[in-house]
């Protein structure tokens, strides 16, 4: 056992001295996280990464939706992201923007609620009145954030409205409600819709961590796990490359003429890859927490998930190593797999947006399971909520590991 760990630690030491590998393992994912953060406008100048954005809100609507939007801007969830100033009319709001006192003005026109939720005695209006976001051209990024918040709100309202209409029509068609009661039914739907909207945030915010403390809105929190998982695949295929490198540099033969078995060499190297992968994930997570204030959630959960996700990924690393014959082949196959898994596994595209069969296929990647797990933790889940991802990753590692062992033998370790 001691020997296995010594072989593993030797590999970790070698990796820590391999500048090219380190660049790929740590710097590349980090730069991508930061880069994507800038593109989506989430990296600010403040120490927490984001500076609160001043916004002028003019609510001329006397209905529930206008009130809900005001409530949203006043909510604790957005407290660290925006500083709202409430004004009575649209002109005042726009002039605050023109004077550069606000990054954007959000104007809720009169009759906004009525145009969406039918009042008693009316059918839903044919056409919804639009919310206006008046942007400060000097602050495109901040204005973009405000627009994102408002769009999120609108899309919720839209979903609710369509759903409401559909429900009313269906109920009508099925004869569930007599035509003379449509009005009261529609009103009830509208009421419920408005209540729901007021109660929920319009954009999916990171949920509470620990004792109900709200975390700041930060989409980087979704990007970082994806990137970390993407480059974890690099690390595990690099582990395979290092086995073949031992072969070509003669150290494998040297190990096999010392009192060391082939199995000890393999398991030792797997331990090395495992430690490297865990170290990589820990560094990426720690760095993103310290530098950008990303909250990854329950610490124990994060740690156990890391162990599982590295385990699952190593299964693939083993298979690639067994099937490839030269370090070059491992590198090529490894980076192809890394990219395919990145795409399939949701490192680039949200999995909820792809077709069902692709979602099913994504379950073959450690990325998808890992991302699930990190999302659960990010939303406030703990170790006990991780059952599925942990099971998926463990099974993946075991099945692929067993398959690799079957395909492998000592002769192929030395020759080929």
């Amino acid at each position: 056992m001691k020997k296995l760990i010594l072989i593993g630690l030797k590999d970790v030491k070698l990796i820590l001295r391999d500048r090219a590998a380190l660049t790929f393992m740590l710097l590349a994912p980090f730069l991508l996280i930061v880069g994507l953060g800038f593109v989506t406008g989430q990296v600010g100048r403040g120490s927490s990464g984001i500076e609160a954005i001043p916004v002028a809100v003019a609510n001329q609507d006397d209905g529930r939706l206008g009130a809900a939007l005001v409530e949203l801007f006043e909510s604790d969830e957005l407290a660290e992201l925006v500083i709202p100033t409430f004004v009575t009319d649209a002109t005042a709001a726009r002039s605050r923007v023109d004077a550069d006192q606000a990054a954007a003005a959000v104007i809720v026109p009169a009759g906004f609620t009525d145009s969406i939720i039918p009042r008693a005695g009316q059918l839903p209006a044919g056409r919804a009145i639009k919310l206006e976001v008046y942007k400060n051209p000097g602050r495109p990024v901040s204005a973009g954030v405000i627009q994102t918040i408002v769009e999120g709100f609108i899309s919720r309202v839209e979903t609710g409205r369509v759903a409401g209409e559909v429900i009313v029509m269906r109920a009508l068609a099925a004869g569930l409600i007599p035509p003379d009661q449509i009005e009261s039914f529609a009103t009830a739907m509208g009421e419920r819709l408005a209540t729901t909207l007021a109660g929920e945030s319009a954009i999916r915010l990171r949920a509470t961590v620990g004792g109900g403390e709200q975390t700041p809105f930060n989409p980087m929190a979704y990007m970082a796990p994806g990137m970390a998982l993407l480059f974890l695949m690099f690390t595990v295929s690099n582990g395979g490359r290092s086995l073949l490198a031992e072969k070509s540099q003669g150290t494998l033969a040297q190990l096999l003429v010392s009192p060391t078995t082939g199995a000890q060499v393999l398991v030792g190297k797997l331990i090395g890859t495992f430690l490297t992968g865990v170290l990589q994930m820990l560094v990426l997570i720690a760095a993103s927490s310290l530098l950008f204030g990303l909250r990854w959630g329950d610490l124990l959960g994060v740690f156990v998930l890391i162990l599982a996700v590295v385990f699952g990924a190593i299964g693939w690393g083993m298979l690639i190593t067994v099937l490839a014959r030269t370090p070059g082949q491992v590198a090529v196959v490894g980076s192809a797999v890394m990219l395919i898994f990145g795409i399939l596994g949701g490192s680039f595209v949200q999995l909820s947006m792809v077709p069902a069969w692709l979602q099913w296929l994504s379950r073959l990647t450690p990325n998808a399971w890992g991302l699930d797990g990190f999302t659960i933790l990010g939303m406030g889940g703990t170790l006990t909520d991780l059952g599925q991802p942990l099971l998926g990753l463990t099974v993946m590692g075991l099945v692929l590991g067993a398959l690799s062992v079957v395909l492998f033998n000592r002769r192929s370790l030395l020759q080929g």
Partner: protein
Amino acid sequence: MGNAMDTILEARDLTKHYGDVVAVKGISFEIKRGEIFSLLGPNGAGKTTTISMLSTLYAPTRGDAVIAGHSVTREPMAVRRIIGVVPQGLALYDDLTARENLIFWGQMYGLSGRALSQRVGEVLAQIGLTERAHDRVKTYSGGMKRRLNIGIGLIHRPQLLFMDEPTVGIDPQSRRAILDSIKELNRQGMTVLYTTHYMEEAQELSHRVGIMDRGELIALGTQAELTQQVGESETLVLHLSPHEDAETIAQALRAIPGILRASATDHQVALTTRHAKEILAPVVAQADARGVKIHSIDIREPNLEALFLHLTGRALRD
């Protein structure tokens, strides 16, 4: 045949096939405790393959070897603790320092703690790398890497050390240092199996020599025993200018009475004879007559190279 106590290695009918290639064809020999035994042979003779089987890296296709009482095929782990291996190709971690390399390999032999660091210090001094011990191996010269490669083979004080062409590709100075250190190790009691295709090295180092060619052991014995096989003969080597066709000239010279054998390699013709001085004149005359330019002529006493030539009709080195 010595008794079992004196014999540290006994190989019987060792054979290795690589697919259709028969790399080693049923060789048998023994190595006595305390001796330097050399396997001398040209490229592809099967030296490395023999060492691979003896060091338990590859299983023999047929045959076996017993090292200090343990069979290489049945008790490889026991054998590995007794032997040290200095491979022909280097086996080093370039991104580790010499010290770290030695520590790692020491650990693989179960060394640890003070005993390990003390042994590492000793070996570093022995291979003359103490000053560069903390530099990464990739910054070393070829000779330094060779020395470290040897140090790794020594780290666990093996009873029997296999050294596979440890002086290939290095400068004369490093080579000298390596040969001297092997003699010193041997004085301290280490048994050495040394392979080389340099006749001079085998001659300088070994108590006994096995000559290998094309997978076979074609001669075996002390140097005196071996050179006796060539008889009283001497070798006359003619160095020709590059544009001459050595083969044709060798053929022509073969006809001269007193020449037992004539063979050509590159720009040299080697003539085996009993009395070199007597054939010198006719050889030069014949060459003159054919307009062949001779740069220089060496007369060599009976040696292993002559024996190889005698046995195979080819020169040891190509």
